[in-house]
Each structure stands twice: as C-alpha cells, then as structure tokens.
C-alpha cells in the first residue's frame, strides 16, 4: 500500500509538473473585444472559426465545435461571409492575429462558446 501511494504521488507530480506552466497559448489576462466583418467562416470539426476583418487587421477567431454552436442556437448561416459580428475572447500569445472566442454576438443573439 505504501508503495502504491508513493508511486501514485510520483506520477501525479510528474504529470502536473509537465502541465504546470506556460502551456496555455491564450492569454486570459488580456481579453479583447473585436467587431468586424466575416471574410471567411468554417463551421467545422474540431472547432469552427471566422476570419474577422476589423478596423486594423484581419483576425483568425477560433470558435467552438459545430455541435455545441448548433445546440446553443448559433446556426451555420449566422456565420455567413459578409456578416457583422462581435467576439470577446483571448489573444494567442505567439500568433498576434489569433483569438480564442469566449462568446460571439450576432445581431442581438449572444452565444457562449465555452
């Protein structure tokens, strides 16, 4: 039993040590709100996306798996090219044009993505 506990402790330490620091690519301390026009959209696995043209640049906005978006009422046609949407989310630390969206607003419909 003692051996089992020791081993379990060791493995837990190893697993959490590797997960401990700097793995999360998206910076939750710098949330951003972007409004723009959809240039391209993908309602696809493993997660949907839109290319969003804002005043200063075009962002790649990572959304949620299509099944989840559909369940929450964000249908495919609501992400049609040319549409105006607002997203709130976290920028990628290493890719300055990428943002992971927490929520998206299309018209007056707000959809939580996490």
């Amino acid at each position, binding site marked *: 039993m003692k051996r089992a506990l020791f081993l379990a402790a060791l493995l837990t330490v*190893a697993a959490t040590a*590797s997960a401990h620091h700097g793995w999360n690519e998206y910076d939750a301390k710098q949330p951003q709100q972007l409004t723009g026009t959809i240039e391209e959209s993908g309602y696809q696995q493993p997660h949907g996306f839109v290319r969003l043209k804002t005043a200063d640049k075009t962002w790649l906005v990572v959304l949620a798996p299509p099944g989840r978006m559909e369940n929450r009422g964000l249908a495919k046609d609501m992400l049609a090219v040319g549409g105006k949407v607002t997203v709130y989310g976290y920028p990628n630390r290493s890719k300055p044009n990428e943002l992971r969206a927490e929520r998206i607003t299309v018209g007056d419909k707000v959809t939580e993505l996490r």
Partner: protein
Amino acid sequence: MQEFAAWAAATPLAQLLRDDAWLYPVVEIVHIVGFTLLVGAAAMFDLRLLGFGRSLPVQALARHLLPWSWVGLLLLVPSGLLMFTTQPELLDNDVFLLKLALIAAAGLNALVFHAGPWRAAGGWPHTAPAWARLHAMLSLLLWIAVIACGRLLAYV
C-alpha cells in the same frame, strides 16, 4: 512532411471529418479506447516489473498483455492520423511535436527493453532486475507524458 499534411488535409476524407457532426467525435473515441488498451496494458506490465502483483508469472502476464497493446496501437494510429488531417497546422504546434517525440521515445524504450533485459526474463526471481525496473518506470512516465500532451493539445 508539410506537403504530406497539406495533401492529407485536402482529401475528401479530411473534408468529411471536418463537416460531419459525428465522425470526428467517433474517431476521438476510438483514439481513447486505443490508448486505454495500449497504455493500460503497458502500465499493468510496468507495475508488475516494479514489484506489484509479484505472484503473477511475469512471462505469462506479458503473453496476455502484449497482444492487447498491439490492438490498442492498431486503433490509435489510424484514428490519430485521421484527426491530424483535419488540422495540418498541428505541425507548427510545439506540444504536438513533443507528443510525437515522446511516442518515439516510449517505443524505443519498449524496443530496448525487449531486446535487452527481457530476454533473460525466464531466469528472473520474483523481482525484476534494476535495469528492467528502470525501463518500466521510464515507460510509465513517458506514456503519461504522451497522454498529457494529447490532452493539452486542446488548450494550446
């Protein structure tokens, strides 16, 4: 490698995986079943070498577990490749590359173990020699790290 990824991502199968509501999750599930078998079998064997379940004859245990670990691998590799085709940009992802390197290291560790200390297993007493236990410990750590990388891919 980049060319292969681009080609694979453009295949109708990759497109189907991206568009279908159920196919991708099903492939994910197959991948998980695959690693419960492969890593489960490897972990049970490693724990035996580390001194747990010493009443079980180590060679008989290996004869039972090894074929199942191959079944696991047979589920893992195709499902992993299929998921990869939907996101060829993974080749630029450090966690993905680390995961591939760790898989290679785990495979090499198993290979060296089977070509080395395992050949003398017939003459082992109830405890495996230190050299074999080192391989077992390494195997456990490497496979856990592989799973950690796989899981973290969803967050980086």
